[in-house]
């Protein structure tokens, strides 16, 4: 693969995989928590939380990127606090991961929320009467039964993170080796004469990764569903 892809292209592919992997993995626990809260809890501000989670889906990605820049940039309120701890997001690959995570979050939460809502609360009640505390009910009944949706949501989020462009380029720019993910690289290649071949190879990589992710989620989802529900 490294022979077929040039070093600049390979760099973009490797960076994209790294950014998407960490973006997905790091946001998964929060995604499950938020999905569970939206599916099962009643609390004031639930609709506000729901709206906030879904905002990146509806806003222009450039706006989301700009908001991230204002918040997490070196002069931003959160960015300054993080900088005190030695964490700088702006113009780093970690920032690209944050942008990808924020953009992929609504898709992840939606899929997980639907699968948690599909878990019969009567089974959770049965678990409680057998002595399971709420945390154990969640770990031994809700979570395993919602697993197909969690896997689907995770893979969907990964695919979305791989394709994120607008928010990433606004927040962390387009720095080779740092923040030049596949979409940014394709954009950059198309800006220079003779870059079409490189762009096309990255397009092919994008399509392959996206298709692989879809097939994988179908496959795992079906297997887990058969194991969990027997249906």
């Amino acid at each position, binding site marked *: 693969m490294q022979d077929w892809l040039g070093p600049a292209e390979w760099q973009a592919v490797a960076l994209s995989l790294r950014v998407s992997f960490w973006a997905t993995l790091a946001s998964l626990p929060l995604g499950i928590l938020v999905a569970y809260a939206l599916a099962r809890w009643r609390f004031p501000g639930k609709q506000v939380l729901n709206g906030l989670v879904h905002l990146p889906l509806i806003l222009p990605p450039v706006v989301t990127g700009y908001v991230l820049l204002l918040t997490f940039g070196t002069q931003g309120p959160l960015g300054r606090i993080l900088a005190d701890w030695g964490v700088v997001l702006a113009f780093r690959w970690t920032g690209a991961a944050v942008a990808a995570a924020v953009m992929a979050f609504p898709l992840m939460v939606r899929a997980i929320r639907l699968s948690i809502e599909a878990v019969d609360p*009567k*089974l959770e*009640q*049965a*678990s*409680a*009467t*057998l*002595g*399971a*505390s*709420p945390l*154990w*009910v969640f770990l*031994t*009944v809700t979570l*395993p*039964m919602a697993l197909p949706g969690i896997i689907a949501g995770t893979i969907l989020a990964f695919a979305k993170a791989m394709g994120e462009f607008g928010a990433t380029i606004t927040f962390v720019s387009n720095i080779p080796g740092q923040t030049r993910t596949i979409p940014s690289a394709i954009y950059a290649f198309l800006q220079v004469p003779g870059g079409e071949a490189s762009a096309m190879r990255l397009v092919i990589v994008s399509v392959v990764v996206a298709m692989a992710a879809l097939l994988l989620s179908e496959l795992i989802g079906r297997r887990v569903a058969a*194991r*969990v*529900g*027997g*249906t």
Partner: protein
Amino acid sequence: MLEVSLTHDFGGFKLDAAFKAPPGVTVLFGRSGSGKTTIVNAVAGLLMPQHGRIASGDWVLLDTDRNIRLRPHKRRLGYVFQEGRLFPHLSVRQNLAYGAWFAPKDAPRENTARVVDMLGIGPLMDRRPAALSGGEKQRVAIGRALLSAPKLILADEPLAALDDARKAEILPYFERLRDEVSVPILYVSHSASEVARLATTVVALDNGRVMAQGPAADVLGNPQLRPGGARDVGAVLTARILRHHDDGLTELEAGGLPLFLPHVTASPGTGLRIRIAAHDVILSRDRPQGLSALNILPGTIAEMRAGDGPGAIVALDTAAGRVLARVTRRSANAMGLAPGVQVHAVIKTVAVAATDIGAVG
């Protein structure tokens, strides 16, 4: 002894019930909508009533006056639900082990092998619930509840979702539970034959209130009550098998009187409870002659209740025990039936269904 007293206003339906559940099986008996399931869910902690106290000695599950409301998982109950509610992602073995895992280490436990053997679920251990029949699911559900080392077993119409053949399959397991396991059982039912076969104590409910409570024979033999509806009125006799006859009949003895029933698969000496449905009993002033019915029990009328319709319930005390008969008011008048009058209760042998015959607890 478990003592329960609850009040809860649902707006439109008010539950106001208090009863005591001594050891054995206490059946909450009543029509749908009488508040049975609500009470069981309150005992389980799945519903928190506005006022109430649920306690057995110093084991207090709920006491709204003292602001004690144990969460469901702290109550140490085994709940057998109507629909089983087995965990579909776990094998039978894992389902059975689920409750035991959360029980305190020093809790008195049933032996898993013995329970598996008693319920006949050994061959199912590695299957998943989806691969079980309705009756098998309910047996596993009973085992799961029993193995969680509960202080009390709750069962909410555990047979209601099964067909008659499966009901006949599961009911004996509850009889064995009653007779072989020391854990008290609170059992919800609207079926007279289940009540007659299982109940040590009956709590008759109607519209959220307790109409009567006491030993099964007393409550079911009370002509003033019909918690299951008029068609379900019937008293319970306790009898012992004397011998099996060649013509397919089983002869029993109840209070010195012979009783003939269709063949009962149990050995002589076995004690049985037999529910005699009130509409299967014919009354006669004189001892009838030349009648096909084999069972004639002489007795004295203790009590009568005229219904809203054409019927009346006559309670008869015989040497075999209390018998209820449902006759028309017209016949009752014509025969001059009244408390104190001597009559004979005529019971057709074949009228007693196998589902109305159970083991004595």
